[in-house]
């Protein structure tokens, strides 16, 4: 090479310029005003048809295949919700609303009787029956699904007439309807599943608005309109194409150049970055999802076996700073019940809320621990690195040294959930917060959750408090019971809740008129995709 210096300099310039994707700054078309409870409302006057080109940062979990009952991450629920539907769904402000069930009755606190819609057909053309619903729920309860624990103390699931299903519980369970509203509780074509003509792990046949045309794991999805969909006039779109684009800059560039008409964004500053970009709108959903820190107490030489060490870490955490800095003021400090849900506990009243770094130092001294240092494993998707770096700064104030280990999501999941006992020191992730404050608290019981049994020890007292809180009907009594759960989880500190996680969604206002709720609890930005309308065939 005659001029290696020139090549190197050009490479350096290329590195810089690849990172830069300036957008056009033409005026943006005004977005229609959203209804109360909605971040965006689709314009029903637009003609049906067209294609939605969506970009997301991660695909469905490859390890669990395409079986919705085994799906255990929100990214899977989001995509699968295009094909699968549940008896009930979640509306604005976390209200439970009918979906495949037309209505329901609760003749007693332990009995739910659902009246099914009689016009629902699967995408293979067969009419949905009560047997499909009963079979699906029994299959879920007999499976190794993580979601099985959320359904609560189900005693029996039986048919109640041709279009009815009766579910009986052993004890009252307040979050039951909210638990039924998630994709793992979807109705499967059980006749075909039983006779082997449909394997849900590899083929998706549901009652939802779209059917799968093509899927390349971690690359793309192609969905086509389900022509047999039961809701009149829905879905408005003819097709949905999903591209998995892990790099945030790629998704932002896609919105700027029109390659994407909708994109989920991780960076909390996305709205600012896209400010002035022609015809790009950015909306933020307030979610009940929250970040939490996992401290591995099951490793052979765990540094966190002494609860005082865990409490010191919890005490040194400045949740306000994490919310303000790492998530750009768009998150809120939270306890084990998600901030923003009715009945959730007040994080300012938790035992760890007072003390700060000095209190943490005293606890560490009492535990006889000096120069505590550990490795925090995180995935590289924003804003997790930002949260981790603020945690690092918080703990440094208490004399605790944190080394951050950043990796891609698949490697991270393998390290955190792949082995029992797990070998990591600490890890950062987020939980979907769902629509009932008692649901996510159930993950503090590793015997129910399962996925965290490799790094978390079961606490009998905490488990009893969680179960007790979920038997109390909503109201002051439940708020009090949930506060006890929060306080106990706070002192247990094997999983430390931090701040809520905002969901940012960008869309092209010249290509799309989407419907998006202002709030979301299941990590599903595509919940209203059947209402979304395209403005032009791109």
């Amino acid at each position, binding site marked *: 090479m005659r001029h290696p*210096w020139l090549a190197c300099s050009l*490479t*350096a310039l290329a590195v*810089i310029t690849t990172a830069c994707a300036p957008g056009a700054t033409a005026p943006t078309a005004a977005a229609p005003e959203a209804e109360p409870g909605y971040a965006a409302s689709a314009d029903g006057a637009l003609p049906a048809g067209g294609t939605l080109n969506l970009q997301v940062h991660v695909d469905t979990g490859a390890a669990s295949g395409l079986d919705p009952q085994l799906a255990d991450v929100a990214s899977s629920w989001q995509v699968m919700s295009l094909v699968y539907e549940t008896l009930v769904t979640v509306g604005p402000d976390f209200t439970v609303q009918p979906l495949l069930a037309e209505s329901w009755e609760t003749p007693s606190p332990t009995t739910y009787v659902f009246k099914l819609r009689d016009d629902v057909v699967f995408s293979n053309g067969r009419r949905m029956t009560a047997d499909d619903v009963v079979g699906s729920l029994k299959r879920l309860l007999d499976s190794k699904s993580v979601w099985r624990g959320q359904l609560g103390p189900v005693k029996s699931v039986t048919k109640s007439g041709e279009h009815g299903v009766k579910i009986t519980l052993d004890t009252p369970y307040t979050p039951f309807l909210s638990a039924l509203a998630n994709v793992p509780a979807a109705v499967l074509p059980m006749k075909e599943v039983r006779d082997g003509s449909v394997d849900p792990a590899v083929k998706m046949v549901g009652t939802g608005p779209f059917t799968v045309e093509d899927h390349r794991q971690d690359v793309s999805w192609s969905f086509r309109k389900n022509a047999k969909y039961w809701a009149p006039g829905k879905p408005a779109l003819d097709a949905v194409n999903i591209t998995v684009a892990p790099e*945030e*800059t790629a998704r932002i560039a896609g919105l700027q150049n029109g390659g994407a008409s909708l994109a989920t964004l991780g960076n909390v*500053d996305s709205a600012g970055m896209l400010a002035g970009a022609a015809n790009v709108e950015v909306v933020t959903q307030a979610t009940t999802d929250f970040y939490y820190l996992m401290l591995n107490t099951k490793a052979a030489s765990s540094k966190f076996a002494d609860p005082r060490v865990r409490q010191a870490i919890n005490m040194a955490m400045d949740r306000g700073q994490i919310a303000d800095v790492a998530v750009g003021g768009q998150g809120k400090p939270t306890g084990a019940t998600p901030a923003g849900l009715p009945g959730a506990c007040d994080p300012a009243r938790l035992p760890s809320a007072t003390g700060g770094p000095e209190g943490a130092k005293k606890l560490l001294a009492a535990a006889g621990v000096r120069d505590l240092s550990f490795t925090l494993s995180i995935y590289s998707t924003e804003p997790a690195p*930002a949260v981790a*770096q603020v945690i690092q700064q918080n703990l440094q104030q208490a004399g605790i040294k944190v080394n951050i280990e*950043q990796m891609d999501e698949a490697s991270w999941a393998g390290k955190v959930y792949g082995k029992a006992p797990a070998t990591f020191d600490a890890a950062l992730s987020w939980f979907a917060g769902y629509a009932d404050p008692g649901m996510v608290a159930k993950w503090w019981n590793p015997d129910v959750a399962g996925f965290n049994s490799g790094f978390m020890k079961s606490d009998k007292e905490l488990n009893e408090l969680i179960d007790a809180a979920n038997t109390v009907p909503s109201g002051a009594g439940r708020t009090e019971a949930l506060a006890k759960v929060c306080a106990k989880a706070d002192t247990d500190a094997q999983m430390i809740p931090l701040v809520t996680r905002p969901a940012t969604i960008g869309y092209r206002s010249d290509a799309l008129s989407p419907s998006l709720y202002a709030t979301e609890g299941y990590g599903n930005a595509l919940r209203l995709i059947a209402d979304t309308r395209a403005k032009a065939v791109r």
Partner: protein
Amino acid sequence: MRRPLDLLSKGGLGCLLALVAFALGSTVDLAGDPDAIVGPRLAPPGPEWWMGTDNLGRSMLPRVMEGVGTTLLLSCTAVLLTAAVSAAFGILAGYRGGYLNEVVLRLVEVLYSFPAIVLAVLVAAVLGPGQFAALASIVLVTIPLMTRLVRAAAVGVSQRDYVTAAVISGARLPRILGRHVLPNVAGTIAVQGTYALSVGISVEGGLSFLGFGVQPPQASLGVLIRQGGSYMIAAPWLIIGPGTVLVVAILAINVFGDGLRDRLEPRETRSLT
């Protein structure tokens, strides 16, 4: 007679020394703790924060200083390792020839067949992201060319009369290589080292840009450019500082390397490689 460095090369050397001094500032926290959250998020450059603040409210000046230091230290360490490995294998292969020469050349060609950044990503995937992966990547990327050049120079030196005289006088292999061959290929190693240094900085930048290099919160030029790329429109100061430094560093190293080559390897004595 060796020519003195020309003005351009001296300028390159001056830039490099200035960058080293700039980086040394971070070791004594001259501009503050590069990891400390000190101000509002994404504040533009001003009297309080000369290069602005990043998305976590950290001052960019100490972070760029730390970034330059990290990148230069990583690249220099890697180039020293490359020089040691390439000198050992290149000289041995060039002097002994035969089977050893063929094995070394074929191994080097295998490494050479990978594009630099692909090889670096492969190494990072095997070793896991971090400084060690960055170091190993730079070494593997820079070894092939340097080994080939050192080998070619060693072939020429091995045929010189003073080497033949040393052999006839009964000198042992380590002495012949260490006293007679190595000093005469040192110029090639030094010149090629400057090129490898610039390649190393590019590889570190690329690897960290992809998230496989230096881990947060430690700054390197690649990390800062990766972070700044996301904020090009909203906060351009995040990428202008580290980007400019990266370009200046690579240009300075290459200009200096060119001058060094002219001084140590006058055109008429260069081997044909």
